[in-house]
């Protein structure tokens, strides 16, 4: 009896969780340390790139009031959550006092903090996280979705258009004109006809027709003497097709003929504006492409918003931002408040490197990087997906083929861990020396970098393909589909989000590599953009590395920081694209 009661009194006993709790806090601490280190680095790079260290606090205050506060207001309005508004105000206000006090206390009692003021600390430590959070919350609601969708699409289109335009620095515009006219247009027409009439023959013909046209174009390139002007070529090969695609997209989405025509018309009009404006550092006439690529998604988005009736207010976001900038500039000008003189300005992006830090620009290196990334993207996507499809869908698990496939598999996994210098050496020996693609040319660099990221693209594509449920393959085979049909119609569409994400992330790795470029003899500094894929080039990380070794402090801090920020922005936007693509494709299927 007594024993029983004792047991009951002891309950169920204790189970020790000391290790688990310790583990949790250690992991938490480790991740915080990592994040803080990274954030500090980024803050300083930012401060240097935009010359914030010497900024007049009043200047900051003016723009904070005219730009940041209305922007936060917009996000909060979109979120429509009173509690959130109150909390945001509290954090912004309390943060202001807390940062100021803490900052001064540290400077006074412990150590002076270089190149930071408490106002800047407040911006980075309190305002930046608050803004990201309210953007995140606000963008989920219709008003915010409208506003940010508008900006994001327009900006994304413009960036994409610019990237393609940059490619025409090395591509032969006239050849492209012929290929488009003789190959792409007839092939597209055959395809459209086949779809529309349900004619399998026309569909099957489209690819041979396109190839034939392209071949003919190559032969005609040197025979023909007169060509249309570049702006016309861009209108014909990009402006018109983009407008057509935008119109069809709207039709497909259930829009009326009139709205489709309007959307197409707006895109075409934007393209036409591009013929009048100059194209700055881009090839002549390519402003057409940039404008059309920015206007088409903008027009499509506008159509969707006006149709939806919800969240239309969001369209004022560009007005808020533009108005904020203008008002701030007016105030700053009226009171004669000196602003910062950022290193990262339009001139930096469009001018060549120079002896003086003030005139130094990243333009040739940006062009080099874009061209290489485009080549690497095509190469590694084709090779990576091809290899992954072969390994996953076409090899048996058993027998000789199976054994070979397993050996390949193991080697791919190992190759992913090979240092990039070794790939550089391989590129030097194989592409530059043996195959004679030249030292430090864009082709050699692209091939080398493609090899470098190939293991990553193959493995991520394999994972995506493996994640496609086997029932779908079985279903397809049982319908009498061949292996190729099953791969093309069922497996690849289902695996595409994963494949694209993996490839884009791997491209991010390639864009930041320096070691293999040094090995293949890429120039650290070139003064003009490469004129074709066989010419010497430099890439962003190479140029940044070169500047970092300059004796002048202005180079080592300001110019380098501006380069790093440019590189980071490119990388971040690539990763964002990867995430958006994945989310979008996953939602659609």
């Amino acid at each position, binding site marked *: 009896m007594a024993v029983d009661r004792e047991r009951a009194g002891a309950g169920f006993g204790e189970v020790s969780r000391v290790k688990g709790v310790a583990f949790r806090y250690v992991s938490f601490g480790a991740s915080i340390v990592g994040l803080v280190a990274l954030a500090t680095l980024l803050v300083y790079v930012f401060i240097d790139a935009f010359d914030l260290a010497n900024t007049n606090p009043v200047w900051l205050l003016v723009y904070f009031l005219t730009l940041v506060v209305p922007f936060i207001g917009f996000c909060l309005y979109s979120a429509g959550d009173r509690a959130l508004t109150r909390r945001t105000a509290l954090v912004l206000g309390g943060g202001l006092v807390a940062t100021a006090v803490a900052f001064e206390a540290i400077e006074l009692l412990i150590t002076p903090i270089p190149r930071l003021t408490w106002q800047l600390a407040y911006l980075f430590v309190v305002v930046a996280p608050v803004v990201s959070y309210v953007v995140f919350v606000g963008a989920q609601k219709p008003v915010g979705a409208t506003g940010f969708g508008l900006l994001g699409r327009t900006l994304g289109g413009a960036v994409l258009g610019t990237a393609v335009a940059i490619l025409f620095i090395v591509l032969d515009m006239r050849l492209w004109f012929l290929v488009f006219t003789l190959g792409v247009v007839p092939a597209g027409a055959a395809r459209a006809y086949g779809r529309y009439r*349900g*004619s*399998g023959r026309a569909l099957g013909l489209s690819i041979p027709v396109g190839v034939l046209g392209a071949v003919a174009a190559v032969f005609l390139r040197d025979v023909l003497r007169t060509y249309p002007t570049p702006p016309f070529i861009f209108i014909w090969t990009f402006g018109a097709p983009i407008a057509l695609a935008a119109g069809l997209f709207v039709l497909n989405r259930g829009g009326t003929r009139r709205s489709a025509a309007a959307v197409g018309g707006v895109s075409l009009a934007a393209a036409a504006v591009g013929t009048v404006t100059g194209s700055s550092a881009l090839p002549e006439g390519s402003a057409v492409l940039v404008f059309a690529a920015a206007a088409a998604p903008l027009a499509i988005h506008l159509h969707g918003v006006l149709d939806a009736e919800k969240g239309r207010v969001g369209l004022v976001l560009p007005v808020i931002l533009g108005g904020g900038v203008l008002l701030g500039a007016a105030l700053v000008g009226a009171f004669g408040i000196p602003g910062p003189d950022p290193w990262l300005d339009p001139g930096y992006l469009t001018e060549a490197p120079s002896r003086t830090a003030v005139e130094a620009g990243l333009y040739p290196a940006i062009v080099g990087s874009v061209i290489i990334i485009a080549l690497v993207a095509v190469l590694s996507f084709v090779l990576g997906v091809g290899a992954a499809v072969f390994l996953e869908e076409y090899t*048996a*698990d*058993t*027998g000789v083929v*199976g054994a070979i496939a397993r050996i390949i598999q193991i080697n791919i996994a190992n190759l992913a861990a090979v240092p990039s210098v070794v790939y550089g050496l391989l590129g030097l020996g194989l592409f530059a020396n043996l195959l004679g693609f030249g030292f430090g040319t864009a082709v050699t660099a692209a091939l080398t970098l493609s090899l470098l990221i190939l293991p990553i693209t193959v493995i991520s594509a394999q994972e995506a393909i493996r994640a496609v*449920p086997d*029932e*779908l393959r*079985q*279903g*397809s*085979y*049982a*319908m*009498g*589909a*061949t292996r190729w*049909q099953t791969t093309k*119609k*069922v497996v690849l*569409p*289902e695996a595409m989000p994963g494949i694209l994400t993996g490839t884009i992330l791997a491209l991010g790795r390639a864009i930041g590599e320096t070691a293999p470029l040094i090995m293949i003899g890429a120039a650290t500094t070139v003064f003009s953009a490469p004129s074709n894929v066989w010419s010497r080039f430099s890439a962003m990380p190479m140029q940044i590395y070169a500047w970092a070794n300059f004796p002048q402090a202005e180079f080592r801090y300001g110019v380098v920081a501006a380069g790093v920020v440019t590189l980071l922005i490119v990388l971040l936007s690539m990763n964002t694209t990867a995430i958006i693509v994945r989310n979008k494709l996953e939602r659609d*299927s």
Partner: protein
Amino acid sequence: MSQNQQSGDEASAESESLITTDVQPAETNRRSRSATILETRDLSVYYGDDRALTDVSIEIPEHSVTALIGPSGCGKSTFLRCLNRMNDLIDACRVEGEVTLRGKNVYDEDVDPVALRRQIGQVFQKPNPFPKSIRDNVTYGLEVQGKSATDEDVERALKGAALWDEVKDQLGSSGLDLSGGQQQRLCIARAIAPDPEVILMDEPTSALDPVAASKIEDLIDDLAEEYTVVIVTHNMQQAARISDRTAVFLTGGELVEYDDTATIFEDPADDRVEDYITGKFG
């Protein structure tokens, strides 16, 4: 001893009463008289060194429903996959013996398994519509054969699968947005759209609720007017209700009895079959 005997008798009496209420032998006989379309001779299947089927010989009549029953792991799915050579996709699988479709051995050198599968459709245990629109699901078979599919084809197949009325306004939406039972009927529509001769079904209702299952059972009955249906099922009542002929496999991959459904359920020749049907076995 005597008690055992009695309980056995009781069970068989029960099953007999259960069968007689559900089967209409007249109809059964009408169908089973037709010509043979599928036939296997001494069919044995090995996975590596393990034998999954042992010398199976069977003749399946045209325009009929043939049920395959038997305990789990006895090789029903394996047998089904032999008929349309889906076993070719399993590396370890080896087939001996003959399977003939209208007298032609499908394992002959000159037979393309892909072409064969265009004659023999299959519906799986778990509904597996493609992540495409309903229309694209239905037209998939025609498309891979290089034929263009018309709206009439889509309507005919969906009506054949008793799904038309439920989805006719949403042909463009994803096949995955349908309920499980609807998805399975979509898979049936997909299978019949290219107009095959034979339709194989591997436990097509086991993932469905009774209402959805009974819809599919009715459907199978109709399908037999135009197609030859071979169906694997674990549900005795279902086999008894919908099939004209029943084949009973037992562990070891042996076909122990194959006869008119009424005979199998009322008066099986083999004791083991009776034991299995009455639930004393497997």
